[in-house]
């Protein structure tokens, strides 16, 4: 493998008595699309939150482009180029869609420049028609896409998407996957949490499987689909 953009090693995170992540190690090369899968409660969201600095891990290290991120606040990690979207969607509800996305652009730009960038991000995600709506008035699928546009507006090097496709129909999902591939062509690196196996298999170069906070497998989609431990822990259930 070429030099990794993101290098996670031995990360552990505990919530009281619950070991949510134990000894998680993974590396993501620049330009890769990596899928992170696993059953509910496996620790996928916790891993994302830890990577962007919302949680501080008790052990392990997180390197992004040769820089140690452990202990940095989320805004510093965003400045370094890693941003995540929220699974349960965390928009600024009393602001317009445009203002939500624009706020992501303020880290690197003035307001007018951020506004132009925000409009382009909305277009790319295919929701420029709702730019002036209040986030509060959106449907759940619309909200999820605003999340993605807002994250893109920070101009990340690596984007962590936490079930961004959850509420999309098939056609929308295909369009969204085309967008992700296009973004990758433009140099973005992606880590994607998703329960839709069809989407994951079609999209990702490599999969990482979490179960009870531990990494139980990693490999190409074909390898993972044939891995007995993964079928036992996860695929068996969803495929059944």
């Amino acid at each position, binding site marked *: 493998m070429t030099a990794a953009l993101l290098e996670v090693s031995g990360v552990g995170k505990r919530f009281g008595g619950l070991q949510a992540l134990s000894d998680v190690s993974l590396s993501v090369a620049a330009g890769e699309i990596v899928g992170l899968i696993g059953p509910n409660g496996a620790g996928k969201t916790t891993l994302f939150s830890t990577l*962007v*600095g*919302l949680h501080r891990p008790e052990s392990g290290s997180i390197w992004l482009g040769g820089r140690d991120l452990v202990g940095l*606040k*989320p*805004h510093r990690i*965003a*400045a370094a180029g890693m*941003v*995540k979207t*929220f699974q349960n969607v*965390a*928009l*600024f*509800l*009393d*602001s317009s869609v445009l*203002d939500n996305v*624009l*706020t*992501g652009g*303020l*880290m*690197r730009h*003035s*307001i007018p420049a951020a506004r132009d960038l925000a409009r382009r991000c909305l277009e790319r995600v295919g929701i420029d028609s709702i730019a002036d709506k209040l986030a509060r008035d959106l449907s759940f699928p619309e909200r999820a896409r605003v999340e993605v546009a*807002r*994250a893109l*507006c*920070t101009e990340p090097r690596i984007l962590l998407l936490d079930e961004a496709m959850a509420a999309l129909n098939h056609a929308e999902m295909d369009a969204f996957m085309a967008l992700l591939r296009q973004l990758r062509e433009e140099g973005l690196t992606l880590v994607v949490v998703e329960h839709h196996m069809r989407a994951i298999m079609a999209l990702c170069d490599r999969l990482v499987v979490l179960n009870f906070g531990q990494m139980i497998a990693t490999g190409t989609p074909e390898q993972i689909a044939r891995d007995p431990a993964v079928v036992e822990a996860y695929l068996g259930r969803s495929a059944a």
Partner: protein
Amino acid sequence: MSGLSPRQWTGLALLAALAIALPFAFEPRGYGIRILCLALLFAAMAQAWNIVAGLANQISLGHAAFFGIGAYTSTLLLIHFGITPWLGMFAAAILGGAAALLISLPTMRLRGHYFALATLAFGEVMRVIGNSWGGLTGGPVGISVPFAQPSLALMQFRETRSSYWLMLAALVVVTLVFVAIKRSRLGYRLRAIKENADAAEVIGVDTTRTKIIAAVISGALTAALGTLYAQFQFFFDPDTVFGVASVSVRMAMIAIVGGIGTAAGPILGALFVIPLEEFANQVFSAQAAGLSQLVFGLLLILVILIEPRGFMAIGPRLQRLLRKGDRR
């Protein structure tokens, strides 16, 4: 997005003309014009409070600390060094901003009630210091601004009218600062913090730094207004300028009654609350001790119950009601 329509400009110009001419409708040395001055001053104070509370939803109940620091700073500089209150006001703003920075560091992580209580405690600590450090402040008996020949240079006026225009100018300045912040990157960041602090951090907002900058601006402006208060009243004591009820809660109350987070809210709120308070005082103080405060408090509770978002929300609500009426 930024500019006002020609009609709005006309309205604003008329309002400005009215505000400037208003003192001529009052008796020059009367009681009415003094109430008006206080209403403008408190509108400006509530507007300064609005920067942190309205935009970031950090409800401070300790702004009296900055107000009192401002009142004492300029007054002590005038008494001991003969420094004009105009310069004293700048010194006050610097000290007020420094105090805001100091209190921000430990409280910025706190949210909601915890932030309110911590700031309340800070205000009370300042009041206790003001009362017990008699050598500096004159202690509980209070302090007087040395009386001089009325002159603009010393911020002392023969006519209450002049004080009125000074208060009006202060209100305009603080309101412009509020509007400028609201439209700036700082304003966007503060709103992001108010609506979802974690999401704001993750997309690159330095939430701690943003809140501290807003708090320092708010504290500095509040302290500068403390100087205006001292020059207007000529006499004050720690319990008044550092008071929870007389300053901190009143600032919050005015902004909330008028419409928190809006530029017009604190102005409407002050023009309602301050005269109402005076009215309740005059009518009921003869009846029984404390009755006027009770009536005043009940009236405010009533307003909040009817429309928790304040006067600024009543207009749109009426419009909606009228439109519904039309459809029938």
